[in-house]
């Protein structure tokens, strides 16, 4: 009996060794083709979010190869780097990330990538001066792109960082000024849209605390069920006090976010209905990623129109969104 078993063990081990050899051989062939895909002469810039990537692409204008790590439906708070992401970061000449803890789980990765001498720029942390950053319980709010008049400053920052990488590129300041102006146009669009909402209805209730910069700029009260990071849980207490708020202030609409579960917002609508106040679903906002809007400007325009339409109580539009 033991002899049988020993020979079985030998067989298994032999199979394992063969399997191992097979997978190693195939792998070396695969990685050789991977590295051939890069454009040889261009510098490589990696951005974490689309909100940053759009601006970097516009300012770079084809002078650098720009990659965006997070897809349009990825929740940046919960993003974990895979081997392929680390590969992209380590192959980059320059990395732009948001900072203020938005990419919470990536921070150890950023620190290690920086050790290898790659230049990393924390965009949100760099464009805010003095006490412009909003704080909550000692933690800085990372959702700066929600205020286009602040986010427009990203363009000159990106031009300066790209200029260090591409000293021969003369078009950077011009493209940065154009991009800056385009984003500032969003600011006046938002002002006009929000002005159409009656004073009493200017309260924005969403799935997590992503809209505080937006609210500060345009004069909306902002409440999120979950905290600044979607990694935190909402909790019953938060839900209950929000239902109180909806009922007491007769708030007409609440909003989903495309990167956050709908469960908590649905609970709010049901909670208010149980107390005799009908809250409609105002639509789905794109908070931490552009979602179906595809890029930063479209995402902000979508958010602004959705919020203005729903809080005005424009019933035809809200029914259509449902």
């Amino acid at each position, binding site marked *: 009996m*033991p002899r*049988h*078993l*020993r020979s*079985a*063990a030998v*067989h*298994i*081990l032999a*199979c*394992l060794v063969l*399997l*191992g050899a097979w*997978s*190693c051989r*195939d*792998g*070396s062939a*695969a*990685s050789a083709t*991977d*590295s051939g895909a890069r454009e040889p002469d261009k510098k490589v810039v990696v951005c974490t979010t689309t909100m940053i990537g759009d601006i970097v692409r516009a300012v770079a204008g084809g002078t650098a190869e720009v990659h965006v790590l997070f897809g349009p439906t990825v929740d940046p*708070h919960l993003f*974990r*780097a*895979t*081997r*392929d*992401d*680390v*590969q992209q970061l*380590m192959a980059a000449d320059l990395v732009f990330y948001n900072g203020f*803890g938005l990419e*919470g*789980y990536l921070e*150890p*990765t950023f620190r*290690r*990538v920086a*050790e*290898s*001498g790659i230049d990393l720029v924390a965009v949100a942390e760099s464009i805010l001066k003095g006490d412009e950053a909003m704080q*909550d*319980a*000692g*933690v800085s709010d990372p959702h700066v792109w929600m205020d286009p008049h602040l986010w427009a400053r990203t363009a000159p920052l990106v031009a300066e960082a790209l200029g260090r990488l591409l000293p021969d590129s003369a078009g950077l300041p011009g493209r940065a000024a154009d991009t800056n102006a385009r984003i500032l146009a969003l600011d006046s669009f938002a002002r006009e849209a929000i002005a159409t909402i009656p004073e009493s209805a200017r309260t924005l209730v969403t799935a997590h605390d992503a809209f505080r910069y937006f609210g500060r700029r345009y004069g909306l009260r902002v409440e999120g069920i979950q*905290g*600044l*990071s979607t*990694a*935190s*849980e909402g909790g019953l207490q938060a839900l209950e006090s929000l239902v109180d708020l909806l009922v007491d202030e007769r708030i007409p609409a609440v909003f989903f976010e495309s990167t956050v579960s709908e469960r908590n917002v649905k609970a709010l609508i049901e909670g208010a209905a149980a107390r005799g106040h009908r809250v409609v679903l105002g639509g789905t906002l794109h908070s931490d990623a552009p979602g179906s809007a595809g890029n930063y400007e479209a995402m902000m325009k979508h958010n602004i129109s959705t919020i203005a339409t729903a809080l005005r109580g424009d019933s035809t539009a809200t029914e259509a969104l449902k």
Partner: protein
Amino acid sequence: MIPPPSDFLVLDAAPLAAVVLAAFTLALLGSFLVLQRQAMIGDAMAHSVLPGLVIAFVITGSRAPAPMFMGALGAALFASLAIAALTRYARVEPTAAIGVVFTTLFALGVLLVETTGARNVDLDLDCVLSGQLELLFWPIERGASPWSGESLDRLPQPLLTLATMWAMSVGAVLFGWRLLRATLFDRPFTQARGLRPGLVRGALLLLTTSTVVASFEALGSILVIALLTCPPAAARLLTRTLGAYVALSAVLGASAGLLGYAFATRGAPILIGGTIDASGSVAAAAGLILAATAMVTVLRRPVASPTG
């Protein structure tokens, strides 16, 4: 000019070494746990570390690896001691003692998270569950030699910790082999010789706890549990001698590490078109090795023979 370091060196060398070293060590130590019917102690530790992490965070106010590691180690040691005490003095069955201790400690941890304000900070609990093997990459500076002192300093800390645990465990098992065997199977003999079986068990438990905690961050608790149990269970089916069992368990563990990692980073891109999570792949390899072993054993066993 020095050519840029290869993808293998930057992305794969350190995670691969870490997972093979950890798998070898965990399977080696796990073989003794399985013999004592304490295989689920790894699961217990995975849940028990939570209060330790929170307390360490509250005391130091940081999420730096060193205080987190000490907190986790303290809590896991407390859990092991509590399990041992319940089994020994309250005569609770080992599996029941494990169940009672880890649920209580985990609940305590959740309470602490809610009451201390640690909930506003991302204590990365999922990381303990799924591990981040991919993050053990080696950030070699472009144009620098990988073997320069500066580059070697950039090797990921968990790899060095795991290498230390490997050396300590292999050393302890080799040098303490006769003592270990006597403690596990011949308690009257050890007591008659004036040896302290409690001390040997305690040392083994300390070694296991430290290795398990050191492995959590890189491998994740699911993989740690898989490596503590699957290779010993497979080895148990293949041999009846204690020495061969322990050695085979460690070798099977290391093979699972090597094959799982190779599949995740090299095999999967060809079969599914992209790399997959290495921790999951290694855990699956450990399970497949056990399944294959069990199948071979069943097929080889004469139908009517008693198995005693």
